[in-house]
């Protein structure tokens, strides 16, 4: 694996290489798809495990991770890249990798829907995969508040306001027990 990373470093500028818990390399946004293409075609990382994003809201950027697997070496290599985090309703933009793996288009559809990262030219990328008629902030962004959403969307359930179990037991449970005995 060290040799693969050496080969990659000759061709692309990597800003970070970590190997503490599995191999992960970081490259620039413009290099990401060509680096992934190189790993697939030359180094034998033919199996796309997943594409996912992490929202680093404090640094105002999205981390995109392409996790690839080499079936010969039986090892994974994660390719990370950082893209600018746009303010909703503006979308962040990234190059598409659907031409390398057919499965990539599903991952990109999900990222578009859940994080608001657009992949122009990726097929069906504007079609919703999981959510339908969603017009709020993309829900996997950190500034989407699930608690606030559920409070706004659904009515509050009764019976959740009691915070004193002893009083609750006294008022509710014992009279009920008494009624049963009568």
């Amino acid at each position, binding site marked *: 694996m060290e040799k693969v990373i050496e080969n990659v470093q000759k061709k692309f500028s990597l800003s970070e290489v*970590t190997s*503490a*818990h*599995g191999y*992960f390399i970081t490259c620039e946004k413009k290099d990401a798809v060509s680096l992934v293409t190189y790993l697939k075609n030359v180094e034998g990382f*033919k*199996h*796309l*495990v*997943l594409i*996912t*994003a*992490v*929202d*680093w809201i404090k640094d105002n950027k999205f*981390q995109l*991770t392409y*996790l690839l697997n080499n*079936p010969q070496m*039986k090892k*994974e290599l*994660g390719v990370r890249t950082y893209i600018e985090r746009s303010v909703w309703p503006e979308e962040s933009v990234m190059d598409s990798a659907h031409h390398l*793996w*057919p*499965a990539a*288009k*599903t991952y990109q559809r999900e990222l578009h829907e859940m994080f608001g990262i657009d992949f122009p030219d990726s097929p069906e990328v504007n079609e*919703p*995969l*999981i*959510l*339908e008629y969603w017009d709020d902030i993309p*829900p*996997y962004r*950190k500034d*989407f508040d*699930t*608690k606030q959403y559920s409070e706004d969307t659904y009515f509050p359930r009764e019976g959740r306001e009691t915070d004193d179990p002893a009083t609750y037991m006294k008022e509710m449970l014992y009279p009920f027990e008494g009624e049963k005995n009568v």
Partner: protein
Amino acid sequence: MFDYGEKNRELFPETKSDGTVDIDLSSGKFTKLWHGPNHPGITGNMSLELTLLGDEIMESKTHVGYLHRGFEKLMERRRFINNFPLVCRVCVPEPDFNEYCYAAALEELAGIEVPEKAQWIRTLILEMARLQSYLMWIGGQAGSFGMGMVGQWTLWARDRVLQMFEELTGGRIYHIFILPGGVRNNLTEGFKGRMLETLADVNSILDDVERVLFNNAVFKKRAVGIAVIHPEWVDEYGITGPNARAAGIPKDVRKDNPYVKYGELDFEPVTGTDSDIYTRARVRFDDCRMTTGLIRQILDRIPEKGEFKAKMPSMLHWKIPAGETYKKAECTRGEYGYYIVTDGSGYPARVNVRGPSYTHAVTLAEKMLVNTNLADVAGTLVSLHTYPPEVER
């Protein structure tokens, strides 16, 4: 006995070089049909939007979203230990693989050593989970071709395994047994004997199923040569597990990247050659038999003494150093993985679940179902062994 003759292909639209066809719905030749989400042939809450010409499928589109619970998002708002009731619910029939992957990723990031005995008990739990999931799957595969009785038998056998789970963990379906640092409890007294009895029952049911299902003329007629996965699709489409092994590619995480105690067990991944529904069923069935053998090996080798849990810090104030990792395990459908990113706080920054059905149910099914018969859709989907809950989490 019956001779229907060859289909007159002139009536069908021409297939273009990229495998698609021009579909003109206004011509009146095509029918749109929604297969699911409430259809016995669909393995869960998922639907296929089929475009048919006669009874042949011209185009298929997978629609998920009927079961979205937003677990990945919810996990970011909960402490690491509070997430265990969520991870086991990501995939209903196989909760233990989720628990293992999540716990193993946290252990790796926090640098926790798991005791020897806990590793063995984890291996046992994972193999028991595989056995019960396969037993349920056999019933589904037979049922999709109209043999409901096989499912009755195997569900009885699965219930025997679930009873053993109940004895060990207190729960039948969701166990929450594998926690960071080890497992929740020791083996009960006399567990080994009762498990061996259960395995004997399961094996006798498997013998019956082999006679009834795999030597059945109807099953052979409907499964041989149908829904073939070409070996070159395996890497391209990210196919893993029995679907890849039936195509002759021995992909098995247990063998390729041994985790827990699989490195010390004696087994070879089962492979097939023809890669049709019948071969996939055969591979899964033989894998199921192999699992019963593996459980016997594990029961013989679990150490009597030893800790089943490492010493852990207080779970409610547990902070994990910043980092990221990917942990995977072989479930009955293929490679199951958890990609976890931490930022040094008491909460995960991101948890991403990689379920094998993500590629099998969406991209692969959309490709495979084209030019197959409507009656084969249920059998094909069950033979891919897809579960929508892990597509949408």
